[in-house]
């Protein structure tokens, strides 16, 4: 809400603008910006045209002599035609910088010297009107600074009015708040209504068919008006508040809106069929042409202000084109009503129409302002557009707005605030804000809420009124007295922080990506969510109103986001990339009315580029499956997960030859491997990108976060190496498994894999270091040799040849 301090000062005596801003902010009406207007026009003064002659060398220019209130008359060349000798116009003197940035200098125009510039309203930044010079009222003395002559010097405040305070969406509302803080009275505008002619009720009838949606509808009739432009002072006030000036009658309604906060509407009474106003809901399929030029098909829930035959306005939202005030209007019906807020909001949203009126009605207009506003507006119309106000108000008032009474227990402020508030302070503050004390006793008092305070209905609201007036600074700062129950860190949080540490130690940096992605980004991953009765599938849970198609579906895997990050980094010429993300993926919930989604945390990562960044000591080779596997192994180790298995191939989005599914005890923990070439292509990535994704819930089930000590033997071990040649298809795990079948084998490490000459193709040599140890005795070499021989035999049984 834009507030003009000049305007505001009509209702309450103001301290300095800074003080006003500080005080308003302190009571919850945050002043977000302060703008001083009229400052940009220094150097522009009022000046009288003394003479005007045709320019000797230019058809379209004139040479004028100008009285600027001091010194000799100035010679100025001018291109406008709309002035007469004797008019007072704005003169930009030499040295002035106009709002558009143009600097006025002495100039020679087609051979004639010009000592300044006569200005249009547009050149002064006052309005878009560039049709000619701005003609000032004749009584303005030459030499008067233009800002003063036009009353442009003002301070505008941008006040952030929270949705609970529609009563502050006006100058009067802000004045009321200030007056309460400053302990001053509010000067309410007192309209001088000169009523004449037959009673208004002879000119129009009002009927409310939807009393639940419209508690009151009051109309006044002004006749004999002449539509024309508004006086400059009024147009400027409207424009200062961001409202365009249209005509004197329409401006009067807007002026009262900004002044009193009550939305009004003016109809051309001649175009109200049957001279009858009916407030009703729309008929099925009924159409209405609104003022914005659109023809709207209405819903039966839309409230209409109609005449005998058809709708005239979308009640409380926007007028209709048919009954609009037009240049020839002479009879005006002024509407002031109270519409039920949620209905206005539904209509406003349904039609995408947000207006000054709907904004206020949906927040709650002041029912006590219906009559003062219509009086004020009718008086203003008569003043601005001539005409006479018919006696009386045609007032349909089927329903009284309840005025709640709220009890305040004297001890309640202290209970809620932790600070004693005296009864005197509580009373003084509430009464200052317009509350009426209805009854009181030793325990508390009952206050009637002022009509404009739609936000106050419970005791806590009264406490807030008291404390915001006292100032939050007056409340002490304490800590809750009750003993702290030390909560244990949840297992999930512990696990996540260990996973982060493990991945960061493996060189991964953390990415944070949006939870929604493009549908096409999910397609290659072959996942979907169950929809409908469970038989349907969708790529993922979709948004009805996404920002764009690229941010439209809740992801079912984190991998596509990380691949996009990788592509971004590669475009920035960053090629060695290790990124991880820990975030939720979103499936559908089986009991959607309680939990529409099933959200599960995932741990995912991508690896690309060199194993070790370029360096003098770095080998420079690129990452492969085993780098990604090492990262996964690091996560498993950090969680104390033993016995995980890696089995080829991994999920379908991975390369079938270089990927694995990770399981433990039959439960899938996730997948790791090289990206499937087609997936890499879809993300515009090269071959050889590695990725993994692990399910946190499965990891947690397998985790042993608190390691359990196992005694270890201190007797000496016997170490033996073993080299065997096996088929390429034989896995390391199967050979190691066979070795481990011997109970005396304590550890086995595969320390070399060799393919190539002199081995035949399709064969590989595996070199194993085996540690033998007995728990209860010192193992002899002979005993170790016997076990070793058994292992060789066991391996031979599966086709392994001992290599000597």
């Amino acid at each position, binding site marked *: 809400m834009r507030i003009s301090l000049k305007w505001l000062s009509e209702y309450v005596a103001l301290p300095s603008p800074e003080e006003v801003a500080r005080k308003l902010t302190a009571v919850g009406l945050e002043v977000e910006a302060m703008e001083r207007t009229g400052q940009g026009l220094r150097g522009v003064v009022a000046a009288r045209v003394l003479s005007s002659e045709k320019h000797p060398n230019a058809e379209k220019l004139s040479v004028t002599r100008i009285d600027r209130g001091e010194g000799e008359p100035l010679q100025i060349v001018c291109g406008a035609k709309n002035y007469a000798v004797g008019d007072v116009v704005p003169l930009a003197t030499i040295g002035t910088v106009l709002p558009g940035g143009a600097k006025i200098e002495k100039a020679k125009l087609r051979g004639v010297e010009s000592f300044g510039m006569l200005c249009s309203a547009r050149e002064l930044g006052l309005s878009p009107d560039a049709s000619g010079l701005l003609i000032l009222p004749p009584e303005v003395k030459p030499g008067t600074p233009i800002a003063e002559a036009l009353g442009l010097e003002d301070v505008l405040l941008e006040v952030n009015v929270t949705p609970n305070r529609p009563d502050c969406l006006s100058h009067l509302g802000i004045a009321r708040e200030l007056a309460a803080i400053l302990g001053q009275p509010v000067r309410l505008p007192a309209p001088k209504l000169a009523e004449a002619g037959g009673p208004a009720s002879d000119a129009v009838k009002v009927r409310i068919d939807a009393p639940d949606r419209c508690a009151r509808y009051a109309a006044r009739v002004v006749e004999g008006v002449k539509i024309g432009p508004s006086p400059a002072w009024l147009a400027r006030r409207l424009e200062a508040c961001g409202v365009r000036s249209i005509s004197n009658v329409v401006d009067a309604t807007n002026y009262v809106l900004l002044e009193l906060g009550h939305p009004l509407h003016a109809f051309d009474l001649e175009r109200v069929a049957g001279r009858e106003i009916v407030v009703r809901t729309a008929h099925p399929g009924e159409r209405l042409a609104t003022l914005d030029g659109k023809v709207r098909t209405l819903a039966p829930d839309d409230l209409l202000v109609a005449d005998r035959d058809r709708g005239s306005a979308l009640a409380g939202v926007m007028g209709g084109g048919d009954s609009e005030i037009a240049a020839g209007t002479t009879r005006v019906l002024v509407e002031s009503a109270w519409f039920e807020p949620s209905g206005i909001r539904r209509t406003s949203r349904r039609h995408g129409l947000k207006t000054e009126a709907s904004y206020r009605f949906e927040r709650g207009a002041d029912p006590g302002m219906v009559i003062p506003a219509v009086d004020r507006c009718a008086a203003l119309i008569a003043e601005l557009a001539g005409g006479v106000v018919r006696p009386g108000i045609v007032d349909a008032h089927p329903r009284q707005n309840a005025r709640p009474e709220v009890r305040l227990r004297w001890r309640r402020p202290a209970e809620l605030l932790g600070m004693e508030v005296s009864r005197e302070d509580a009373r003084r503050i509430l009464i200052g804000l317009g509350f009426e004390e209805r009854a009181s006793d030793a325990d508390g008092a009952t206050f009637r809420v002022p009509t404009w305070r739609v936000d106050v209905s419970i005791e806590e609201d009264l406490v807030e009124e008291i404390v915001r007036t006292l100032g939050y600074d007056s409340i002490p700062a304490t800590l809750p007295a009750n003993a702290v129950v030390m909560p244990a860190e949840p297992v999930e949080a512990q696990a996540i922080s260990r996973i982060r540490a493990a991945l960061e130690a493996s060189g991964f940096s953390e990415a944070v990506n949006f939870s929604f992605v493009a549908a096409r980004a999910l397609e290659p991953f072959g996942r979907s969510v169950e929809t409908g009765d469970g038989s349907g599938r969708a790529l993922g849970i979709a948004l009805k109103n996404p920002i764009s198609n690229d941010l439209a579906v809740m992801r079912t895997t984190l991998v596509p986001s990380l691949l996009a990050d990788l592509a971004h980094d590669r475009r920035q010429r960053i090629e060695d990339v290790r990124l991880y993300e820990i975030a939720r993926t979103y499936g559908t919930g089986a009991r*959607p009315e309680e939990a529409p*989604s099933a959200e599960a945390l995932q741990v995912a990562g991508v690896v690309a580029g060199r194993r070790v960044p370029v360096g003098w000591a770095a080998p420079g080779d690129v990452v492969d499956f085993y780098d990604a596997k090492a990262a996964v192994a690091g996560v498993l180790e950090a969680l104390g997960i033993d016995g995980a298995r890696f089995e080829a191939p991994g999920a379908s989005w991975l390369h079938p030859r270089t990927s694995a599914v990770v399981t433990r005890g039959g439960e899938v923990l996730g997948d790791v491997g090289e990206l499937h070439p087609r997936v890499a292509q879809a993300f515009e990535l090269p071959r050889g990108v590695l990725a993994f994704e692990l399910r946190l819930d499965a990891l947690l089930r397998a985790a042993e976060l608190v390691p359990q000590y196992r005694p270890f033997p201190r007797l000496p071990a016997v170490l033996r190496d073993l080299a065997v040649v096996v088929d390429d298809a034989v896995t390391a795990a199967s050979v190691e498994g066979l070795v481990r079948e011997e109970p005396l084998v304590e550890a086995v490490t595969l320390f070399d894999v060799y393919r190539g000459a002199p081995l035949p193709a399709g064969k590989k040599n595996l070199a194993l270091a085996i540690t033998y140890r007995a728990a209860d005795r010192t193992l002899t070499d002979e005993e170790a040799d016997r076990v070793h021989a058994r292992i060789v035999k066991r391996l031979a049984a599966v086709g392994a040849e001992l290599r000597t």
Partner: protein
Amino acid sequence: MADLLSQLEALATGARAAIAAAPDEKGLEELRVRFLGKKGELSQVLRGMGQLPAGERPRVGEVANRVRDEVEGLLADGKRRLETKALEAELAGAPIDVTLAGRRLLPRGHRHPITRATEDISAIFARLGYEVASGPEIELDWFNFEALNLPPDHPARDMQDTFYVEESTLRAGVKPGSVLLRTHTSPVQVRSMKRLGKAPVRIICPGRVYRSDYDQTHSPMFHQVEGLCVDEGITFADLKGTLAAFARAYFGPGTRTRFRPSYFPFTEPSAEVDVSCTICGGTGRKDGKRCGTCKETGWLEVLGAGMVHPRVLENGGIDSKRHTGFAFGMGVERMAMLRYGIDDLRLYFENDLRFLSQF
């Protein structure tokens, strides 16, 4: 005998000179073989002992042992001398290039600043006894709005542009328009109260939230930390003390806090909380110039807070006649911006390694 003795004497003299002149350990070894080896000079001399009368042998043997001991000692000294010389030569050599990068096989990865800020915030509240809670991001309208005193058609819903979920992509049974992406972490307030079923409640909830607004200063996804403390006798003063303690812990011991009245449908009274500007120390001026971070006000708006509305307590199953509580919420992106001097919201979600690796 005299002949043998003089031969031994000559051997000793020769050995002394030769050992002193030995250039390296290899030369020393050759000398050891020459003088003391099986076929060395000493053995040669002693071979002549057989011709001596038995009475003279002990005397010659004694001299021979002395000579052997002396030569062995000289060899050992020579070895030590050469070792010392070699070490001195090594130590005096040119140093290696210590400016070459250290040999680190895998540079450490970096934690995202949003995570870092969230962890720091959570750790502070953990010390104050707050437990971490969570709730769904795809949320029901009831928890996100209605239970928080924001009925349908409430204008305050305009404060948060909401993403709605397409029902056809859910399982059957949801009311149209009833499923959305949570616009704040506040629904976790009601969920936590319902889950615990009784006071005291002392939780914080960090998490992702969503609003359909995307420009230079708005991201459709961002992060909040919500806090809730409900018990008997909890007051606004406790809220002030708690947040003041938090601000000092997070921004530094000199940080001041300021509470201003505001409006949230789910708290009454409500407040916006400012902290003294972390850049200019609350003076509004930095290096003689206008502080751009606080726009010269000296204050930064960082938190929303208030006393939990009785209706919200009741919706959480807590008796509002016996209990009071406070709640607060903050934007993690903003907290991280202020802490790390990040000046562009979009950096957070671009995941450029040049950004990430700074943390």
